[in-house]
């Protein structure tokens, strides 16, 4: 009996230790076709709420104080603002035409938005609620990454196949780096030394030295039994310690795990269909993936590098963030 109690106590301790890191964390998923945000408990992985928002919600980011979620409502040409305490929509922000995805500047005051139809990057001042600058870039701007110090904006343009580096002070394009076809996502390393750019049609991830603005390595992928055409890299995550990278491979239905020092592919994790975007929880023990065709998210254990669960969400999940 005493042993049993001891075991139970030990179990409870272990269990609470595991769940502690994710206690109170919330996973937020935009559903492009469902026009909703799905809210999940990061620990139990239960869907707690489904909130109707504007049309074609794609990119989502948290406000700096984590109290609001900004949502690119692409077909409404605006940024929806969701209060994460009340789960009520607040008045929307302007965005320029057809906002697809965006990034929040580290100052927490400006959103940098890709206007896919107009070949523009729009800068929105959140407090002033207006577009304060427009920067012409290549055809179909998409991925948006801001350096950790906030000085450099990287925007990828899909049809032009470039990563444009924008100086945040002058708001001028200062460098254009040609990458492989249809670049989708730009992700900075936490030290600001590199940014990684995925090319959906080219099938590669270019590692770019941020100071030299040159490609220093190209990661390629090969999965036995999967045609090369199906390997379409999109979302990227890099751990803060720069040990691991994760790359969503689209219709290959896998997430590649990269050694972020050697750039070798360590393994491929089978997730849902057409895996698109990725998000860490705050201690980076979990990766959440949106799977656009199977209408679910997959949960990856970062320590074991195993997919531990998939959870149905709304119609065509696109973006994902985790609120601590």
């Amino acid at each position: 009996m005493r042993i049993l109690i001891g075991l139970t106590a030990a179990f409870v301790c272990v269990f609470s230790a595991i769940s502690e890191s994710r206690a109170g964390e919330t996973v937020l998923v935009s559903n492009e076709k469902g026009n909703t945000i799905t809210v999940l408990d990061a620990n139990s992985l239960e869907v707690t709420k489904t909130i109707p928002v504007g049309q074609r919600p794609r990119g989502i980011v948290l406000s700096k104080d984590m109290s609001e979620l900004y949502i690119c409502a692409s077909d409404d040409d605006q940024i929806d603002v969701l209060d994460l305490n009340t789960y009520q929509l607040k008045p929307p922000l302007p965005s320029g035409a057809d906002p697809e995805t965006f990034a929040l500047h580290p100052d927490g005051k400006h959103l940098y938005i890709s206007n896919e139809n107009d070949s523009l990057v729009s800068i929105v001042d959140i407090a002033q609620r207006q577009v304060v600058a427009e920067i012409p870039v290549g055809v179909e701007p998409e991925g948006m990454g801001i350096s950790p110090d906030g000085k450099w904006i990287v925007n990828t343009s899909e049809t032009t196949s470039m990563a444009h580096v924008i100086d945040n002070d002058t708001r001028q394009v200062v460098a254009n780096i040609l990458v492989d076809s249809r670049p989708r996502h730009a992700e900075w390393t936490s030290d600001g030394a590199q940014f990684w750019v995925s090319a959906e049609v080219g099938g590669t991830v270019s590692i770019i030295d941020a100071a030299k603005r040159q490609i220093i390595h190209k990661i390629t992928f090969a999965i036995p039994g999967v045609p090369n055409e199906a390997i379409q890299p999109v979302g990227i995550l890099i751990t803060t310690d720069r040990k691991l990278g994760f790359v969503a491979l689209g219709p290959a239905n896998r997430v590649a795990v990269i050694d972020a020092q050697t750039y070798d592919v360590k393994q491929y994790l089978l997730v849902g269909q057409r895996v698109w975007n990725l998000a860490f929880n705050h201690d980076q023990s979990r990766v959440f993936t949106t799977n656009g065709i199977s209408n679910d998210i997959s949960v990856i254990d970062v320590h074991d590098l195993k997919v531990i669960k998939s959870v149905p969400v709304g119609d065509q999940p696109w973006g994902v963030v985790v609120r601590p």
Partner: protein
Amino acid sequence: MRVIKWRLSPALVYARRRFYPRAETRVRTVAVLGRAIVTSLIVGVLLTHASGSACAQEGGAHNIDVGYLSQAEKREAPFPYLDAPPADEGLAGARLAIADNNTTGKFTGQSFVLKEFIAPEGGDPAEALHQAAAAGIRFLVTDLPASKILALDASPEAAGMTIFNAGAPDDALRAGECRANLLHTIPSRAMLADALVQYLVTKRWTNILLAVGTTEGDRLYADAIERSAHKFQAHIIERKPWTFEAGARRTDTGHFAIEAEVARFTQGIDYDVLVVADEGDEFGDYLPYHTFEPRPIAGTSGLVPTAWARPFQQWGATQLQNRFLKLANRWMTARDFAAWAAVRAVGEAATRTNSTDPDVMVKFMRSDKFDLAVYKGAKSSFRSWDGQLRQPVLLADERDLVSVSPQPGFLHQFNELDTLGIDQPETKCRFK
């Protein structure tokens, strides 16, 4: 009485009609066309002038002129059709691609100019080619029937040019009649047929009744379906010529005559799917809901294999559809797409080689390093053996994208896209 007149590139007629949202009367279409020709001549002169002065400023080092050559067609709004074909079909695709190229060109210091050479109706495209040659064109996108492409290509003035075929699906152009300076961005009939038959085989609708119209294009389309059926082990139960004279629909109670005729045509035959070879859309629209047994229709009507379709929205295609709508005020067709892909191929080669030297660009374009993102998932490139742009083929009706071929499971040693059309081991193309 036969009302249908337009025959210029009959092969893609179905595509032009399919995805064109507005009906225009004959008079208006012709008037628009006339205006378009005059405008293009004026614009052509202005452009030549403008680019001349621009060249003077920049030394002309980073400018690339792309020619677009087609022939004005008399396009009546034919009786069974609900939508008249657009006057700027093909050309609008080229114009959009020039704009796309120039957006990229801002960052690479390259600029692209489209020079339009439209031969008048009944005139000789050779005169337009002469003008293109005089303007120093090295990349020429054409939307012409196969015979006229071959005639142009034989001219000494075409010797230094790379010609893109963005209109003719004829397999002969990729086989016995292939030319070393000819690239094809429009899918061949063999590719279209393979795309369709792969899907039919996937659905296990392998018993095909083939209804064939009276034109040469119809015959070639049916031949391509037969070849695909053999390739993918489907069965042509019967190849039946359609000889019933169209025209009853406008007659009061004409639908009874059509119903009786289609029922008779399909009665007593055991088949899964009725495949129509009717590139001019003379009778294909009569067939649905009239067959003796309830059977789906595919081919040039019903479920249509095509390079581009209005309901297509995947792989970012929505963006291209939106840009095109904004530019042309209508939906993109397969011929628009083919012209767009040709001009984009020129732009992509210029970007990747960081060169505006046509010889450098063409060499790269034909190499295995070249790839073009065409919004259809897999990357496109030119087949080394016949100059055809390998690409996924859409299967769509007017309202729905049904599938995209190659179908999963049709495997290939090197590239699954080469399960569509004529592969290297079977090519009859020997470049001269």
